[in-house]
C-alpha cells in the first residue's frame, strides 16, 4: 500500500476515533509529566471534552454516505454510527461518575491512569462497532478487554479489586481464546477475514460438511462472546468482578463493555450467519435454523440472572445479576431476529434505555456506598426521608429497570416482545420466560425501593453530591422519563438517520 492510496482514503470518517486517540495520548503525557501533588481529578474534564468532541464529529458525520476505508477493514455505516453514538453517550456519563468517585483508600496516584485507560477501552469498543473485518473486530475487542482488566484492578491496594481483576483476566482470556478459535474456523472455511467477502462465500455453502464446520465456528464464537455480555452459563465472573471493581468501572463493564459485546455479536451473526444457509437445500438461513440455541441461552440467562438476584445482599452483586438478566432480554431480540422487523433498532433502543437507567442507578450506588462505607442493601435505607430528590431519581431508574410503563425500560421491552410475537409461530415460550423473569425482578427491584422508602435512616450526615455526578443523575432521570413518555424522539431519529440499516455489509 503506497502513500497515495493512504492519502486517498477518506480519513474524516475516522475523526471520532482520532479525537479519542489524541485525547488519550494527551492525557497520558500530562499524567506523566505533571507534578505529583497536582490533583489528577481535573483530567476528567479533559477526557470529557474529548468524548464530547468525538460525539460532535460523529454527529457531523451522520449525513455521510457509507464510508469504507483501509480495504474495508474500517466501515462507517449506519450500524457503526448508531452504536458509536450510544457508546459515546455512555462513556461521557461514566467519565462524569468517575470524576466524582472517591473510594475510602483514595485513588489519587492512579486517577490519571484511570482516565486514559478508560478512553482506550472506549476506543476499542468504537473500533469494534466500525470494523468490517475479523482482524479489526478482534483488535478492538482486545483493546477493550485489556484496558478493562487493568481498570478493574485499579484500586491497587484493595484485595477485592485485585481478586476481581485476576478473575476477569483469566475468564476474559479464556473467552477471547475461544472466540479466536471460532474465528479461525471461519477463516479456514471462507479463506478471507473480510466480513463482506466471507458473507458472500458462506451464502453459497450448501455442502453438509462445511456447514458442520460453520456450526462449530458459530458455537465457538457465540460462547466466547457470551462471556463478554455475561450471558448464562458464562456469567460467573460478573458478580465477583462487579463487586471488586471500583463503582464507575462496574458501571462501565455493565454498560459499555456489554454494549460492545452485543455490537460484535450482531456484526458477526448478521453478516455471516444470517446469509449462510442452514441446511443442504438452502431453504433456511443458518441463524433461523439454529435460533433455538440462542433462545435457550437467552431463557437461561433471564432465569438465572433474575432468580439469583433475589438472594443478593450486596447492591453491586445485585446489579451484576440484574445486568445479566438484561443481557438475557437483549438476547431474546437476537434469538428471534426481532421477527424480521424489530432487530437493530430494538437492540439500539434497549441499549439506550439501559445506558440511562443503569448508569443512573450506579451513580446512586457510588454516592451512597462511598458515604456509608458499605455496599450492603441497607445503605439505601431511609434515602426517601433523607434526600427525597435523590430517592425520586433512584425510583425512576429502578422502575425503568423493572419495565414499568412510563419509562424507557418499558418501551424497550415492548419492542422486544413485538419481535417475539410477530412471527408465525411466535416465540411464546421465550416471551413467557421473559415476562416471568420481569415479574421475579419486581421482587428485588421493589425490595430496593422498600429500603429507600419504608426503612429508617441508615447513616447520618448529609449526602454531598459533586456537580458531575448530579449532572449524571439529572440527565439519566430526565432521559429515562422523556424517552419513556415520548419514545418517538428516539425512534424517529434512528429511522430517519439510519433507515433499516441496509448498508450493513460491503456490497463489493
Amino acid at each position, binding site marked *: 500500500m503506497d502513500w497515495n492510496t493512504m492519502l486517498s482514503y477518506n480519513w474524516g470518517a475516522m475523526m471520532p476515533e482520532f479525537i479519542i486517540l489524541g485525547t488519550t495520548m494527551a492525557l497520558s503525557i500530562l499524567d506523566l509529566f505533571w507534578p505529583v501533588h497536582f490533583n489528577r481529578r481535573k483530567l476528567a474534564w479533559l477526557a470529557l471534552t474529548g468524548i464530547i468532541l468525538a460525539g460532535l464529529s460523529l454527529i457531523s458525520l451522520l449525513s455521510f454516505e457509507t464510508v469504507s476505508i483501509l480495504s474495508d477493514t474500517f466501515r462507517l455505516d449506519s450500524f457503526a454510527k448508531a452504536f458509536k453514538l450510544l457508546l459515546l453517550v455512555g462513556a461521557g456519563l461514566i467519565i462524569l461518575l468517575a470524576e466524582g468517585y472517591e473510594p475510602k483508600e483514595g485513588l489519587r496516584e492512579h486517577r490519571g491512569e484511570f482516565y486514559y485507560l478508560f478512553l482506550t477501552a472506549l476506543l476499542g469498543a468504537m473500533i469494534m462497532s466500525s470494523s468490517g473485518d475479523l482482524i479489526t473486530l478482534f483488535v478492538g475487542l482486545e483493546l477493550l478487554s485489556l484496558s478493562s482488566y487493568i481498570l478493574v484492578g485499579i484500586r491497587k491496594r484493595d484485595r477485592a479489586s485485585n481478586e476481581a481483576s485476576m478473575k476477569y483476566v483469566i475468564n476474559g482470556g479464556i473467552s477471547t481464546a475461544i472466540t479466536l478459535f471460532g474465528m479461525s474456523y471461519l477463516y479456514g472455511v471462507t479463506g478471507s477475514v473480510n466480513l463482506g467477502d466471507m458473507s458472500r462465500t458462506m451464502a453459497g455453502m450448501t455442502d453438509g460438511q462445511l456447514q458442520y464446520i460453520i456450526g462449530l465456528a458459530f458455537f465457538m464464537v457465540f460462547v466466547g462472546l457470551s462471556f463478554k455480555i455475561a450471558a448464562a452459563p458464562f456469567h460467573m465472573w460478573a458478580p465477583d468482578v462487579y463487586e471488586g471493581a471500583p463503582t464507575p468501572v462496574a458501571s462501565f463493564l455493565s454498560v459499555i463493555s456489554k454494549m460492545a459485546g452485543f455490537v460484535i455479536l450482531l456484526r458477526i451473526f448478521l453478516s455471516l450467519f444470517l446469509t449462510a444457509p442452514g441446511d443442504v437445500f438452502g431453504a433456511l438461513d443458518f441463524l433461523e435454523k439454529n435460533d433455538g440455541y440462542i433462545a435457550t441461552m437467552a431463557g437461561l440467562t433471564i432465569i438465572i440472572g433474575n432468580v439469583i438476584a433475589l438472594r443478593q445482599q450486596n447492591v453491586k452483586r445485585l446489579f451484576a445479576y440484574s445486568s445479566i438478566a438484561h443481557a438475557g432480554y437483549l438476547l431474546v431480540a437476537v434469538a428471534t431476529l426481532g*421477527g424480521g*422487523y*424489530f432487530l437493530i*433498532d430494538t437492540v439500539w433502543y434497549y441499549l439506550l434505555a439501559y445506558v440511562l437507567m443503569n448508569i443512573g442507578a450506579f451513580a446512586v450506588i457510588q454516592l451512597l456506598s462511598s458515604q456509608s462505607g458499605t455496599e450492603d442493601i441497607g445503605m439505601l435505607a431511609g434515602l*426517601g426521608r433523607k434526600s427525597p430528590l435523590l430517592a425520586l431519581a433512584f425510583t425512576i431508574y429502578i*422502575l425503568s429497570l423493572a419495565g*414499568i*410503563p*412510563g419509562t424507557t425500560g*418499558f*418501551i424497550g421491552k*415492548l*419492542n422486544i*416482545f*413485538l*419481535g*417475539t*410475537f*410477530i*412471527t*408465525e409461530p*411466535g416465540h411464546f415460550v421465550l*416471551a*413467557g420466560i421473559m*415476562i*416471568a423473569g*420481569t*415479574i421475579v425482578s*419486581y*421482587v428485588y427491584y*421493589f425490595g430496593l*425501593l*422498600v429500603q429507600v*422508602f*419504608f426503612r429508617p435512616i441508615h447513616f447520618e450526615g448529609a449526602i454531598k453530591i459533586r456537580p458531575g455526578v448530579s449532572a449524571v443523575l439529572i440527565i439519566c432521570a430526565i432521559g429515562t422519563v422523556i424517552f419513556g413518555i*415520548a*419514545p*418517538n424522539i428516539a*425512534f*424517529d431519529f434512528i*429511522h430517519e438517520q439510519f*433507515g*433499516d440499516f441496509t448498508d450493513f455489509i460491503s456490497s463489493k
Partner: protein
Amino acid sequence: MNVYLLSLLVFSPLLGILMISLMPKKEERTIKQFGFFGTLPPLILSFFLCSQYYSGVALSAFSIKVDWIRFGNLEMYDPKLFAVNYELGLDGLSLSFILLTTIVSSLAAMASIYIKQGWKGYYLLFLILEIGMLGVFTAENLILFFIFFEMTLVPAFFLIGRWGFLEREKASYYFLIYNGIGSAVLLVAILILFARTGTTNIAALTQMMTMGGVSLFAPISSSMKYGLCLAFLIAFAIKLPVFPFHSWMVRVHAEAHPSIVMVHAGVLLKIGAYGIIRFAMGIFPEQYESLALALVLMGVISFLYGAWLAMVQTDFKLVLAYSSISHMGIVMMGLGALNEAGLQGAVFQVISHGLIAALLFFLVGALYERTGSTMLPNLGGLARSMPVFSGFLLACGLASLGLPGMSGFISEFMVFLGLFKGQPLLAAIAVIGLIFTAIYILRAVMLMTFGKNDSLEEKEKRDIEGWELVPALVLLGLIIAIGVYPNLLGGPIQSTIEAVMLALGGR
C-alpha cells in the same frame, strides 16, 4: 375545547401534585387541605361531563386522538402500522366509572385526614393513583390502557406498604406480585394482538376480531383467540378478584389504611370488571360465550366461599374483605349470564359495591380512629356510645345484603334474573349465598352495635360528627338514589350494554 376536556380530566390531579410538592413537609394541615382540593378539579370536570351528557351532547365529541409512538420502521407499508396513538374517549360505561372514581377519590381524600405521618408522600401518591384510575377508564387503546393500569400499581404498592397496619409490607408485596402476574398475562395478550394486527385501538381490534377480513402480519388462529380471551379473563379475574385468585386482596383489605382501601375496594377492583366487559367480551364475543359457563362457576364459588368465610371472621375488616370477594362473585355471575339483565346487573353491582365498600371502609377508618381496634369482640355496644355511626353502619350493611330500595338490591336482583334465565341450576345453588350474606352482615353489625364489649377499658368514644358526616351522607345518598331510581345509572350504561349484547348475539 371539547377535545381537550378528557385529557384535562385525567391529568387534572397534577395541579394538586404540583401544589403539594411545593409545600414543606411539616405543614400537615395545608398539605391535607391541598390533597383534598387536588381531587376537586377531576370531580368538577366529571360532573361537567355528566351534565353535558344529560343535556344531550354526544360523548364521542370528547374523543381525542394524537399521534404518539410508532414502533418499527414500517412506514412505507402503511403509516398506521404499529402506531400507537394517544387517544382518550368516553362512553356511558366509562362515564359512570369515572364518576365513581372521582367521587370515591374525593371522599377518600377527606377520610385521609386520619393519616398520622408522611402526609406529603401520601397525597402525592394518592393523586398519581387517581390519574392512573381516570386514565384506565378513558383509554381508547390497549397500550395506553396498560400504561395507566400499571400507573395505579406502583403508587398503590407504596400506599399499602407505608401507611397500613402491622403486616402492611407483606400485604403490599402480595399486591405487587399478584397484580404483577395479572399485568404480565394482560401484557402478553395485548402484545400478541398488537404484533399480529399492527394496531391496539380497541374499536379497530373489535372490528378485526369479530368481522375479520383484514390481512394480518401473522394469523391469529381460532385457538389463539381462545387463548387471548382466556388471558384477558385471567388477568382481570386476578384484579377483580374472584376465587381462586383472591388471597392478595384479603391481605390488602386487612392491612392497608382504610382510606386507601376505600379507593382500592371502591375503584381499583372495578377495573377488573371494566376490563372484562371491554376486552374479553368486547373483542372476543364468540370465544367469551363459550367460556361463560366457567365464569359463572367461578362466580358462584366466590359468592358462596366469600360469604361462608365472612361468617366466621372476628376482624371486621376481614368480614368486609370476604364480603368483597363474595360480591365480586355476583359480578362474575352477571357477566357470565350472557344476557342483558345479567350484564346490567353486573355493572350495577360494580358501581353499587364501589359505593358501599367505600362507605363501609370509611366507617372502619372512623372507628379505628376512635377505638384503635376493628376486632368484633372489642367493639360491642357501639349503639350506646355512637348512635349515628351505628345507624350508618346498619344502613350500609342492609344495602350490602341487598335490601330493596338500595342499590345492592337492584344489582343482585338483576343478576339473578339474568342467571335464572341462562343457568337456572347454578342460580338456584347461588341463592343460598344470599342467606349467608344476610347472616354475616347482620352478625357483624349486631355484634358491633349491641353485642357485649370484651375490652376492659371503656374508652371515651365520640360519635361521627362534623366533616365526617359528609362522606357518609354522600355515599349513603347515592346508594339510596340508585336503589330508588335505577335509571340514574341504567340510562348511561344502556348504549354500551346494547352494543356488547349485539356482538354476543343479542339474546
